[in-house]
Structures are given as C-alpha cells and as structure tokens.
C-alpha cells in the first residue's frame, strides 16, 4: 500500500471507528484504561469474556487524536477476528510486542506475524512522538487480558 492509501485507511478508521461507543460499559465488561498525560488523550476498552476467557465482545471509548482513535478502531477489528478463540491472551501479548517492535524499526515492513489491518500504522513509524498514541489502547488491553 502506498503512503496515500495508508493515510486514507487511517483516516477512515478515525472518521468511522469500529466498535466505538459513547455509552457506559455494563458490569459484564472488563475495563482497561489508558491515559496520555502529555496530551490528555484517554481511552477505555471494554472486553466481554466468557467463562473460558474467550472474547465475546469488545468496544472502546476514547478522547484522542486521529492516530489514537484509528489505532483503537484497528484493534477492535483484530479482536473481532479473535472472538471465540480459546485463550487469546498470549496471542494478544505477542501481537502487542511485535507491533511495538515494528513501530520502532523504521526499516521493517509489516511482519507476517502482524495482521494486515495494522498496515496503516506504518505512517507512525516516522513520527516517534505519536507511538504513544498508537499504544494507548494496547496498554489498556493489557489490563483486561
């Protein structure tokens, strides 16, 4: 994907984020929160799990920049594909670490270990200050898996 296409994809996630909600999470959602103190961005991730820790539903609330919202939306699409996957925790932790490594390595193309839905975040590789914006929702995920 060229840079223009990546940007359009990122903007699409920003303008029409997947699984973004404004309502309150009910008690059957485990909630993880993230806050970027330097800019005041806040995210809240709600994860509904069954008794075998499989994802039933995932939503997020956020006040943030385009990168923050887009990253959250992309994560929601990933979680959506992992519904009913038994014990996804380890997979998600590996994904998070691979994402972090990929963002920090300016040379590396999207590795095969990462889903293609993360490709638009390649734009952030040249913006080190925005990596925190990407990882905010992933750090919130840590709290609930």
């Amino acid at each position, binding site marked *: 994907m060229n840079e223009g296409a990546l940007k359009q994809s990122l903007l699409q996630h920003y303008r029409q984020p997947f699984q973004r909600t404004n309502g309150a999470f009910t008690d059957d959602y485990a909630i993880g929160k993230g806050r970027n103190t*330097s*800019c005041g*961005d806040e995210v809240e991730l709600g994860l509904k799990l069954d008794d075998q820790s499989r994802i039933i539903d995932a939503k997020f609330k956020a*006040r943030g920049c385009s*990168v923050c919202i887009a990253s959250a939306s992309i994560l929601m699409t990933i979680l959506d594909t992992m519904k009913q996957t038994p014990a996804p925790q380890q997979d998600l932790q590996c994904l998070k670490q691979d994402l972090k490594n990929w963002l920090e390595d300016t040379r590396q193309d999207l590795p095969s270990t990462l889903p293609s839905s993360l490709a638009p975040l390649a734009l952030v590789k040249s*913006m080190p200050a*925005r990596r925190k914006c990407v990882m905010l929702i992933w750090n919130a995920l840590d709290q609930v898996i």
Partner: protein
Amino acid sequence: MRAFSPDLIRTDFPFFTHHNDIAYLDNAATTQKPQVVINAINRAYTTSNAPVSRGLYTQALYADEQYAKARLILCEFLGCCDPNNCVFTSSATASINLVANGFLAPRLKPDDEIWLSPFEHHANYLPWQRLCSVTGAKLRQIPMNVNTCEILWDECHEVLGKNSKFIAITALSNVTGLAPDIESLCRKATIASIPILIDGAQWAAHHPVNFDNLGCDFFVCSAHKMYGPNGIGLLVGKTEQLEQIQPTQLGGGMIDWVTDNFDDNQWSALPQRLEAGSPNLAGAIGFATAAQYIQTIGHPFIQEHLTCLSLALTAQLTNIEGICLLAPPSATVHGVVSFYHEKVHTHDFAQVCADNHIAIRAGHHCAQPFFKQLNINGTARVSLGLYNTHNDINRLVKRVRLAVEEFA
C-alpha cells in the same frame, strides 16, 4: 539601534541557515540563538575559561571580570540598580524553587494563603503546591472568565486579604498569551505588604523590564527563552527579601567560613550565597550577550512587530470555521496565541504543521491545572519570535485550514 526587519534578523540566526524551510513558531518553548551569542559562548570557552572566584592567576581574574560584567549587563537590562540583587540560577524554574524553599517555606503557617493566577506554568505552580501540602497553607487561584481566560480582578479581593502571604504570577502566560496587569498588582501588594514574585520567563525576551520601578519582590527569567543559552537564569530581588533567603543549595563558592556546627557557618554575601557550585561562566556571558542583542533591536520595534503578527494571526485563525481562540485577539498581542477545534485534536494540528516544516506546540503546555478549569484537553500554540514573518503566519494558517478539512 539598527533598523528592524524580521528577514534581516533571520540571517543573524544560524539555525535558519541549516533549516531554511522551517517556520519556527515555538519560541515560548525555547528560542533560537543569534550568532553573536554562539560566538560569545565559544569565546568564553576558548579565551575566558577559568574558575570564577577561585583563582589568583591572570585567567581566573579575567573570568571573574567577565562574570561580573555579565551580571552587570543583565542587571541593567532588567532595570535593577544593584548587581548584588541579581542572582544567577540554572533557570527560571530553579529561581522560583529557590524562593519557595528558601524564602517562603520558613515563614509559612497553616491557613496562610499563596495566590497564583489561573494560568501558571507548572514551574510557578508546583513549588507552591508542595509548600502548601507541607505547611498546611492554602493554594489559591485568582478567578478567571472561563470563556475568555481573562482574570476577574474585581472578584479577587482576597488576594490582598489578611491571609494572603505570597503572590506568584506570570507577566505573560505561556498558554493563554495574556499579560496580567502586574504593575497594578505589584503596587497593591506592596501597600498590603504581601511579597510578590513575577515569573518573567515569557515576558523578558520582548518587553522592557524595570525591576526597581515595578515594585515586585522577586522577578525570574530564563536565558534560553530570550535568545540566550540553556542552563542559566536569573532571580532578581529586593535586598531585604534576598537577605532572608536561606540557601537551599550548599557547596563551594557560597560560604565564607565552615565551622564544626552547621548553625555557626558563615555564608557569603549576596549574591554568591545563593550561587553554590562552579558558576556557569559561559552561560552568563551568553545570557548577557543575548540581552545586548535584544537591546540592539530595541523593544519598541519588537513589540510593534509581535503585535502586528499576533493580530494578523488571530484575524486569520478566526476566519477558519470551528477554530476557537483561547483568549480574545485584542488581549493576545504579545506573541503567544493558543487555539483549538472541537473536532480536530491538537496533535493532528501539530503533526500536519510538522509535516510541512512548521513548528508549533500542542498539548497542555505544562499548565494542567489551567486546562482542568476549561472543558478542553489542550491547545495548539503559536509563539512568535524576532525572526518570524507574515509568511510564517500564512503558512501556518494554510495548514490549519487543511487540517480542519481533513480531520473535522
């Protein structure tokens, strides 16, 4: 006084030779350095480098001279008649901390009040907040109109009330761009015998300061915010107030006689007593050179230039749908303008600008308590300098407009 032209001024700053496409609009964070300042620092290390007040040899005596001369230049620049009342520190932040811990801490009692403006930088908020938490004193803020950020002077009689024991206020807010009427406040504080500290970090670069006439007890500023080097600032104070500061940094150069009993130690006279450690000679020389550079341009021209640019900027920004200025254009004529948009995050503004070589700041600008009073996360901030031009402003406005189209 040389003829003033921002394009000509720009050629004084080597940074713009290396980055000739940048519109540097982040001067409230730090300013660029003119070649004369860089040369002075270079000369300090090549010809003047020797310990200050510590040697009897020629080079050491020369270092003493240069340090004293730098102090004198800055003293005159800030309108203080006594160079002993100009204390070199590492920064305005360090100066404020020195006053908080060395002057106010010993005299503060529970229920005493420290008064601040509603939009202080963390450097002029946190030292007082800590002091209050330790002593039981109360941190108070002068109320403001949350729509315009202007101070509501008529609603803050308590700032001069019987419980008020100290006032710390910025001369120019790094976030709102507003300049409180410090002259009036200093007069009233003096009458009420309430010590007052003025944070001149944003003010001193572009506005004349006459400490002796202003009537405040303390005035602080930082070199790097006024075209000087990093790592050095000033605390200017009235003699009777500085004399009362208990040194908070102890070490070499600030003590005449060390005894076996700490309480019997004999500290040096001012200002050395408050300048522990090896003086930053090169920094002082660079700082003084920056002050002289500002004087060659002249405050009248600087203020006219910044006012003109500020008004042009705010006029253009208000024409962009959805853009909100933090404060009224008529009040933000000193070169600091903050704005936000309901639907566009400040980071997105800043990134679009950065991608087009325009340097602005986005976020809370080290003024979190201020933003808690408003229902916004932060702002994008433009802060102007000597070398900024209308072209810089036009470039910025173009990108802001495009960002709104893209993200809103």
